[in-house]
């Protein structure tokens, strides 16, 4: 009795551990409150808003069409391959089976990267071949084929190999014999292969991630890119739906063969009405539906992307770094379709542009990264004849740009800002004007530092009176020691959370970008931003055109559009980072903001600031190593 109790409890515990995360997700998807920690009552609103989101619906459609097409094609290829392999002699068959099984055991990331490399290699022969729907489809077909083979082979083994010969013997042509005699026997295997392939395709993230191109998202890559920006409750709903779908398909795959045999037992006497109906359903209705879905969907999809066939511009920008309305306006005005992709850090953007898997027309990196891209010959010269609106950009910003683009030939400034200290007036008792406050023991556990090598070292180097692009090992050592000294006082090394923590009064002092400071101030008036007197970092994010851009003129048209004062003003209102567009600044109605020293610091403040420069691989490594030493101690 007790033993069986314990057994049941143990089983229950295992199930609990296995399913707790998914149950949490499902429960949260019905939570009407936006915060994870509070139950705000049962609600379907996240599901409703999910279905209203055109991007997600588009991703859903892409996912389904890729799953369906890749499953269909891989079922065809896989079944043919299985038949071929079955006809081989034993030794070859075993070898072939092993070879086809390897991709299944192979790590997805290896498959993904190798497919990406292969596709890049293809571009050497067909330069017009670009990443997107086709590459994802090819990749999915590739990794699906082994699953189909795996489920068809056992069925082929079970069939009596003489039935095929018997059919030939009775006068059937080989094709007729296959479809009349062999195919019905292996049909359950083909079906489960198809469903398995469909499920795998639906499920895949890693391989899609590596093989997709600009603007093509499946649900999984969509969820990933959304989650990077911050988890929205809609994503719980979407993940729940995805989980339920995959679960359902897996149940179908696993129970299908059983149903088949039990059916057979039921249909002992003559083929019953049921089996005839099932037969008709399989032969007529299912293919008809498939054709309908694919053709109808194809039209729908084509209509959705009709512009993609014509003019387009592929933009690669920071997340939340443009007013979405601006994109719509540009498309409406010019008829050029904007394919919009986002990145999170300069370092994650760089390899994608360098690999050239997707040819971006326009990218928005930061100063030092532009320098690095220039050094690696990745950028094209901009034809400024196409950008008359450049005149609205303040001369001082172009001067500043010379630090990384010496002749102002490759970049157009988009946003800029400084790094400074955000402090809560109610929590500090003296005026703040120096980095030294970050080393004041009074504020132990009240300090938030940026979790970024260059920013942390920049602060320490500036505090010590050095350049924040220092390549002097002694200076760097001194900066490191300073940071080590500071470590016990720091509440946390964070990135985006500085904003939220400062708004909610969780810390007194935080290192932050000026653009964020404007937003936090509007949320919490007790906050104040200052550029310390020792000087700081001033950064510029500028538009550049990669060498392999396919729509250079469209890219220039887009830059010109963004430089238009009204448009630049819209973007400033949306992203709150300082605009280098002086005409746009003049359009700002709110005096407090237009004259804000946070958004537009005065020249004396700016003269104390430096831009980051790319220091080369060697110093990249030195900085990283020193930072690692600090963090690990």
């Amino acid at each position, binding site marked *: 009795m007790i033993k069986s109790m314990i057994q049941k409890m143990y089983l229950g515990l295992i199930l609990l551990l296995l399913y707790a995360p998914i149950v949490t997700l499902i429960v949260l998807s019905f939570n009407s409150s936006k915060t994870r920690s509070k139950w705000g009552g049962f609600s379907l609103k996240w599901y409703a808003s999910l279905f209203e989101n055109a991007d997600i619906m588009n991703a859903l459609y892409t996912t389904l069409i890729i799953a369906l097409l890749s499953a269909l094609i891989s079922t065809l290829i896989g079944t043919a391959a299985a038949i071929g392999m079955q006809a081989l002699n034993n030794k070859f068959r075993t070898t072939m089976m092993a070879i086809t099984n390897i991709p299944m055991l192979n790590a997805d990331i290896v498959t993904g990267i190798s497919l990406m490399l292969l596709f890049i290699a293809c571009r050497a022969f067909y330069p017009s071949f670009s990443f997107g729907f086709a590459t994802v489809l090819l990749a999915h077909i590739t990794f699906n084929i082994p699953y189909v083979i795996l489920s068809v082979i056992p069925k082929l083994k079970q069939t*009596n190999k*003489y*039935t095929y*010969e*018997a*059919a*030939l*013997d*009775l*006068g*059937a*042509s*080989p094709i*007729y*014999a296959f479809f*009349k*005699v062999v195919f*019905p*026997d292996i049909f359950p295997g083909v079906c489960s292969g198809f469903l398995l392939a469909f499920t795998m395709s639906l499920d895949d993230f890693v391989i899609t991630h590596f093989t997709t191109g600009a603007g093509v998202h499946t649900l999984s890559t969509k969820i990933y890119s959304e989650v990077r920006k911050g988890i929205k409750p809609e994503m719980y709903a979407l993940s729940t739906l995805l989980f339920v779908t995959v679960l359902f398909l897996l149940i179908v795959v696993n129970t299908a063969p059983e149903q088949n045999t039990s059916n*057979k037992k039921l*249909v*002992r*006497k*003559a*083929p019953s009405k049921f089996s005839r109906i099932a037969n008709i359903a399989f032969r007529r209705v299912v293919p008809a539906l498939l054709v309908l879905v694919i053709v109808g969907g194809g039209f729908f999809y084509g209509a959705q992307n009709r512009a993609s066939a014509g003019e387009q511009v592929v933009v690669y920008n920071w997340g939340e770094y443009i007013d979405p309305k601006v994109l719509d306006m540009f498309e409406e005005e010019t008829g050029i379709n904007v394919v919009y992709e986002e990145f999170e850090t300069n370092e994650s953007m760089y390899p994608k542009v360098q690999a050239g898997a997707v040819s971006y027309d326009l990218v928005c990196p930061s100063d030092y990264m532009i320098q690095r891209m220039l050094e690696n010959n990745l950028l094209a010269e901009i034809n400024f004849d196409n950008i008359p609106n450049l005149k609205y950009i303040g001369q001082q910003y172009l001067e500043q740009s010379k630090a990384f683009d010496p002749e102002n030939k490759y970049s157009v400034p988009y946003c800029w800002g400084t790094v400074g200290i955000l402090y809560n007036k109610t929590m500090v008792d003296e005026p703040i004007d120096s980095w030294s406050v970050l080393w004041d023991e009074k504020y132990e556990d009240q300090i938030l530092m940026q979790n970024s090598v260059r920013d942390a070292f920049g602060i320490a180097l500036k505090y010590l009176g050095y350049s924040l692009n220092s390549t002097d090992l002694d200076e760097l050592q001194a900066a490191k020691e300073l940071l080590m000294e500071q470590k016990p006082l720091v509440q946390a090394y964070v990135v985006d959370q500085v904003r939220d923590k400062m708004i909610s009064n969780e810390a007194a002092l935080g290192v932050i970008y000026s653009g964020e400071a404007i937003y936090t101030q509007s949320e919490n008036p007790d906050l104040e931003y200052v550029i310390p007197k020792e000087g700081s970092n001033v950064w510029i994010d500028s538009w550049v055109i990669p060498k392999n851009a396919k729509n250079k003129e469209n890219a220039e048209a887009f830059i010109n559009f963004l430089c238009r004062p009204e448009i630049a003003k819209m973007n400033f209102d949306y992203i709150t980072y300082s605009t280098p567009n002086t005409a746009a600044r003049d359009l700002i109605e709110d005096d407090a903001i237009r004259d804000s020293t946070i958004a537009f610091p005065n020249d004396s403040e700016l003269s104390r600031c430096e831009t980051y420069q790319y220091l080369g691989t060697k110093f990249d490594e030195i900085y990283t190593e020193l930072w690692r030493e600090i963090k690990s101690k």
Partner: protein
Amino acid sequence: MAKKLIDISHISKSYGDNLVLDDLNLFINENRFLTLLGPSGCGKTTLLRILGGFETPDAGNIIFDGVDITNLAPNKRQLNTVFQKYALFTHMTIAENIAFGLKIKGKSKAYINDKIKYALKLVNLDGYENRMADQLSGGQQQRIAIARAIVNEPKVLLLDEPLGALDLKLRQDMQYELIRLKNELGITFVYVTHDQEEALTMSDTIVVMNQGYIQQIGSPEQIYNEPENAFVADFIGESNILPATMVEDKLVKILGVNFPCVDTGFGRNKPVDAVIRPEDIDLVKPGEGLLDGVVTHLIFKGVHYEMEVTANNYEWLVHSTDFFPVGTEVGIKVDPFDIQIMKKPESEDEEAIPIEE
């Protein structure tokens, strides 16, 4: 004079290094029940598959009713096959199975229905039209396989060990069934088996094969009573195969004893093999036979006793309805026409000489 229907000439076939058929020649007459008999691996099934079109010979050709069909696809041939494992289409009803070939030929519905009824009656399975194939017993399935083949009115029906999977009693019933069918249809049956009893029971002509060569062709009586070599003698039934010397015509010296026989033409003092069937040996009182021996082994087999008699250092296998306890001294007597003399092969290779009809 029967008409020659199939002419197989100079057929060779090998799989890799394995030579399965070597320059084989054979013709098959109309309206015959011809059996290819031999141990497994002798090439009989390969020959049948070449006839059916499922294998292509490396050399040689097959003339069917005056036309060369060597490279004709199986679905174009006017012969049908009954496979060892029935090979029924399990997802179809019995009627659909039988109608399969007729539908391909584009026969009318009425014609097909008539044929199904006729064929089912012929194999004694009327009323089974709507059953599924896997609901039937092995024997029933095999009869359906035959029905499915014969509705196409082939000139030749090829049967590849069709009774191999059935139990003994069923197998015997089916043997009679097949003879009856063959007589009713009046077509040629080419039957492959390794079961000598089956071959003897059903065939008009038996072709004994070994290692890709034909060893002997003849009626069941000829094959049994007058095996042409030790292989045939050994393979067909049980026998005593003894090294002997042909002293002169009609006299053979076996184990140092002269036996009168009926064979002539082997020359004088030539080494030969003598075959004596165990049931052809008469046990008599010591001294009354040609040589004396002692019963060393005794098993009751139902119809007869099986004994081993040691005489002149040889263990003679004897079948007799008379009972001689172990230890009894007996005399061995053989009638001259019960001794079959065969030329002794001079080498291993020659043991499998190709023989033409």
